[in-house]
């Protein structure tokens, strides 16, 4: 059914295309869908991905940048040499596909556990922490005057927002309270520079091939802010998938990450990175609480969502390891 609309769409903007084949839904919730398909072309099939909000789901959640902004950011990143899929087309209302965009499909792996364990990536793994530093440096250098309109958040505003989210759960958690106090006591103040922040740059949102990073995905939480936020988030223990001694996504050390970032001509502030790692750990913990609430009250009464609620304690032990480490 979606193939008919996609066929009409690709014939309008992809010269030579005669239709599409193999459309299959990949993931996403009710308000946002990801589809893979091939554009049928005399030169051979062209792999493509559709990201869209179906009709009637136009409004983006408050923190999200929106699909149109996401398309612009990916295209800017692609043009600047940051590994990113090429955006092929931004949907228009008359195509009846909803809002969103179509991008080139980049082959590779996104499943973190496979990237961390499969032989195929054995050569890439030791390179990734440093490579990620270089990719983030490129991303933080995207020219501000070309960016779409994005929300802007200081560390102080983020603490306020997480505190509000946490209190709304009515879920007394002494470790989260302690973390909120720590964040207020260690708030580094406004960043000396404001850049694009990806907002969800982590193992799981990267397409990895045998040679390393092929593409950065999921730009929906992009905003303006402190570039050190991305360096802290990529180090959150939840994205190490068991490789807890390799802070950068389970791949390597902070030193390698920082070296890659600085080799690309940008400065690291390790204290700010630590602040954002603590903030990020709390952020994921509160998100687990949000999952519990949606399971209990909302339409998504799935077992998976229920179990994510029981993962908040993982962030509590990680917060204690950061804030009150025990002797080794």
């Amino acid at each position, binding site marked *: 059914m979606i193939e008919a609309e996609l066929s009409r769409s690709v014939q309008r903007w992809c010269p030579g295309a005669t239709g599409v084949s193999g459309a299959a839904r990949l993931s996403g919730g009710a308000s946002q869908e990801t589809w893979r398909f091939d554009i049928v072309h005399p030169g051979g099939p062209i792999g493509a991905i559709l990201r869209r909000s179906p009709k009637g789901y136009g409004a983006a959640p408050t923190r999200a940048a929106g699909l149109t902004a996401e398309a612009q950011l990916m295209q800017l990143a692609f043009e600047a040499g940051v590994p990113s899929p090429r955006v092929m087309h931004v949907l228009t209302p008359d195509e009846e596909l909803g809002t969103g965009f179509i991008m080139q499909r980049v082959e590779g792996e996104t499943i973190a556990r496979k990237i961390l364990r499969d032989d195929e990536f054995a050569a890439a793994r030791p390179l990734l922490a440093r490579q990620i530093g270089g990719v983030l440096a490129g991303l933080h250098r995207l020219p501000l005057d070309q960016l779409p309109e994005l929300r802007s958040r200081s560390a102080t505003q983020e603490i306020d927002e997480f505190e509000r989210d946490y209190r709304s759960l009515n879920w007394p958690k002494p470790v989260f309270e*302690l973390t909120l106090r720590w964040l207020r006591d260690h708030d580094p103040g406004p960043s000396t520079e404001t850049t694009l922040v990806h907002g969800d740059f982590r193992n799981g949102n990267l397409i990895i091939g045998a040679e390393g990073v092929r593409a950065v995905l999921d730009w929906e939480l992009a905003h303006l802010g402190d570039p050190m936020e991305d360096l802290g988030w990529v180090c959150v223990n939840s994205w190490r998938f068991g*490789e807890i001694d390799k802070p950068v996504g389970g791949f390597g050390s902070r030193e390698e990450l920082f070296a890659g970032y600085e080799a690309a001509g940008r400065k690291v502030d390790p204290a700010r990175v630590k602040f954002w790692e603590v903030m990020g750990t709390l952020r994921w913990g509160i998100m687990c609480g949000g999952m519990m609430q949606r399971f209990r009250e909302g339409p998504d009464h799935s077992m998976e969502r229920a179990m994510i609620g029981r993962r908040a304690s993982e962030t509590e032990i990680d917060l204690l390891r950061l804030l*009150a480490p025990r002797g080794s």
Partner: protein
Amino acid sequence: MQDEPTPIELTKAVADFLRNDITPLISGHQAFKLRVAINILDLVTRQLTQEEASDAREVERLRALLGMDGSVTELNRALAERIAKGEVDLATPGLAEHLWATTMDKLAVDQPNYASYKRELGRGG
């Protein structure tokens, strides 16, 4: 007093049935969902086994820390409030030990395979 088998025994029997008899018959997304279901039953079994003793230890620590009495929920709420007000912090004797002990007891139920938990368990629990 209710009759036996106990909830722990019943839940474990269902989990073992799903694990041993049903898992080999199912594939794809349903197999993933089945694994989640089994994980839930295992978690419930661990909680039924451990909760009473760990809650009792937690209440005892909280009473000493706060100098007041109450249920485990009330005492946690009181501790959360005192931390929020800055009346209790990591310099308060016993707080770090209490949070560590409580968190370890939670992980023992929620995610005993979580790498951070296994590392800390290796330090002596």
